[in-house]
């Protein structure tokens, strides 16, 4: 157990280092610079003054060294666009994205697993085909278009739901509904399909036949015996979905005016806000590392065949 943990920690540190190096060099070598330098009407004089103020006149290697030594001590510097500390800008947006991710996962897993099971158990029936059809549609429809369509339907025509923002208090669910729906159009079909294929594999196993032969009720066979085993690969899919949802539901956030991490990252990259880009990268990498770690632990607990420690 201890060895496992130490190995993991070591790997995580190396991974973090590699990611930060690559990101730092990529963003700094991209053409252009921080937005304040890129104004059409800025004169060469103004640009020179700002470049010096932001310390961008030093070579890239030196700047990385400075950033790294500060970051290790917890100082991620100030956002080049707003002047606020990077940590503040990230922590402002992170809870909103976590909220969206959480509800999307709950919805997608809850509905997805059930539909996946139905689809597997009733393989090649009408229900199976329609579930698969809707999954395919969900994965293919561009979320941008669907989001605007939903806004037109529910906000403009029916006036049932607000078209943007986070809202507060008891009204919060109204603001969450459409963004969660949009994010689920890719998450839900993914879970359905994984559950379905996993169930199909499990249901043909010997122990399922044994359970039926023992006279167990069908729903016990499916939900108690089969599903518990079929869920194992689904857990690793969830492990992949979490960082994807946390790191950037950019389109959904842009269309619904949701102040989340996705928009933050894109704005930071477009505005060449180097400090913010690095801060966000570190957070997202950390999240990926932690979720993968947790998934592996859960895996080990559920599946005795897998020995991590």
């Amino acid at each position, binding site marked *: 157990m201890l060895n496992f943990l130490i190995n993991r920690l070591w790997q995580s540190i190396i991974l973090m280092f590699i990611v930060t190096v690559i990101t730092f060099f990529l963003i700094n070598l991209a053409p252009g610079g921080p937005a304040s330098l890129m104004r059409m009407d800025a004169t060469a004089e103004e640009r020179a003054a700002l470049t010096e103020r932001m310390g961008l006149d030093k070579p890239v290697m030196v700047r990385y060294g400075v950033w790294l030594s500060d970051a290790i001590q917890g100082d991620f510097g100030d956002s080049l666009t*707003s002047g606020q500390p990077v940590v503040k800008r990230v922590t402002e947006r992170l809870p909103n994205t976590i909220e969206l991710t959480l509800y999307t996962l709950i919805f997608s897993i809850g509905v997805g697993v059930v539909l996946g099971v139905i689809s597997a158990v009733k393989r090649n029936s009408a229900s199976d085909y329609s579930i698969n059809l809707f999954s395919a549609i969900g994965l293919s429809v561009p979320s941008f278009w669907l989001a605007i369509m939903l806004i037109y339907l529910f906000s403009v025509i029916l006036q049932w739901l607000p078209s943007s923002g986070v809202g507060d208090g008891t009204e919060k669910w109204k603001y969450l509904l459409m963004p969660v729906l949009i994010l689920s159009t890719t998450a839900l079909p993914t879970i359905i399909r994984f559950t379905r294929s996993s169930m199909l594999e499990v249901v043909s196993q010997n122990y399922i036949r044994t359970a039926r032969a023992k006279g167990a009720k069908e729903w016990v066979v499916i939900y108690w015996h089969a599903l518990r085993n079929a869920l194992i690969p689904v857990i690793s899919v969830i492990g992949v979905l979490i960082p994807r949802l946390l790191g950037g539901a950019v389109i959904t956030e842009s269309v619904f005016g949701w102040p989340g991490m996705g928009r933050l990252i894109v704005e930071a990259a477009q505005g060449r806000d180097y400090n913010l880009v690095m801060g966000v990268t570190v957070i997202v990498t950390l999240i990926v590392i932690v979720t993968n770690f947790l998934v592996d632990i859960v895996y080990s607990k559920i599946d005795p065949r897998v020995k991590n420690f």
Partner: protein
Amino acid sequence: MHCKIFKMLGIFTVVSMLLFASGCSSDKASSDKTKTESGPKDGGTVTTPIVGDPIFNPWHPNAYAESNLVNRVIFSGLTKPGKDSAPAPNLATKWEASDDGLVWTFHLREGVKWHDGEPFTADDVAYTFNEIVLNKALGSNGASNFKALDHLEVKDKLTVEFHLKNPWAALPAYLSFNAEILPKHKFEGKDPWELTSFNKEQPVGTGPFKVDKYIAGQSLELIPNEDYYEGRPHLDKLVYKILADKNTHVAQALSNDLDIFVLEDKASLDRVKQAKNLTILPSETTKYYWISLNQENPLFQDVKVRQAFLLAIDRKAIIDTVLKGYGTIADAAIAPNLKTYYTNDVTHYDYDPKKAKKLLEEAGWKDTDGDGILDKDGKPFKVNFEVGIQGDLVQSAQMVQQYLKEVGVDIKLNTLEWNAMIQKNVINRDYEMILNWWTYPTDPDVFAQYHSSNAGKGNNIPGYKDPKLDELLVKGQQTSDPAERAKVYKEMQQYMSDTLPYLYLWYPQEIQIRNKRLKGVPKMYFGGTLYYVSEWYVEK
């Protein structure tokens, strides 16, 4: 199990049917228009969108378009754009220049208070300019506009003098252009760009509204300044919604969630025209689109070539197609809404490809090998045309490319990401031909974009150097009497239309979308109406 499936299927089907139906159903979102008594009423909330988070500091290097729309409501400048476009009093009630034009005295309004109760005085004006704008190391946004300014002197609590390096008639106009005053008592002794408690949280201004609630990435709510010197605003709340996606602006306007903004994507125009709760107001702006042919490049130094290019482009067709007709052809740099200075008595370049070909022939370009491309001394006329991806620039550029191809110029169009375009074309001046626009305050002083001293490192993008134009620019800048100035600028426009330092394309019209319940908004471009936001009111 079956029931669950069919229920789900049922819901899915109904939703998709509704989605299809929504494409052709009519609006339910119409407010009924009953006759109410006229006259401003107090109360109500008005919402307008901005595409990014604002910085509450008009001089901050990162304060762009979205910040400008907020800052002119929170802060005040010495002057503001008048409803007739001449600079109108704001924090300054009157001003005059000395006989030699080098010292301008501004008399300030009495009894103005900052949002935190402190009195506004000449010290604030002097501090803003001497310590922030003129401090080169800070790189303030717009500081380059004040090149002619040397320093400020406080005469007494309500009088301040602007000392210039050379006469500059446009000073009052530039003071109305994103040049608001900052409070000395907040910034003294601090780094103005690091003061995030002010710049990002709670600014202190003298404007009609002040910050109440700001949720980063989402919205900014402003409430009235009870002590505003022109009277308490009618509205109870002014909300700026941060919406990065411009398509949602239209959707939200239709659902009464947004009240006023500028429509950029003209594809939605028809949808908006059908809406019962919205009106469309085209307005003139001080903006013109141009093509710049790099004057360092011998290909473009012959004026005949420049004139031929302009003759070859059917600008009216582009205006009708890309701008949906919302624009007028430009032949010089002064926009028509600068009524005192604009003249239409200039050389015009009506679409005439035959004449273009003739001019090119006179310049030595003929299609000797019959391949459809003109050549000279064995070299074909090939041009690299670069444009940044923003708004309708690419669409316009594509049409320009087609027209020039028809007269035998082989144009290779390269679209660049905005940052990359700025880095390459503007910072490094590495380009042959680009298309972009200029916008400037309501004053004809275009020295910054045309004078030879601004070639290379300044805003004279083509790098055009012409002593006669320089002379006219300096004369116009330094003449104080508006009638005399008008003469100079009219001569300058004629000269510009002959020599074409930039190829003038069009003056776009801005399309303002407004909810019918919003009243009291002056007939101006949207940015200008914000200076009069205290007069806005809503009708229930």
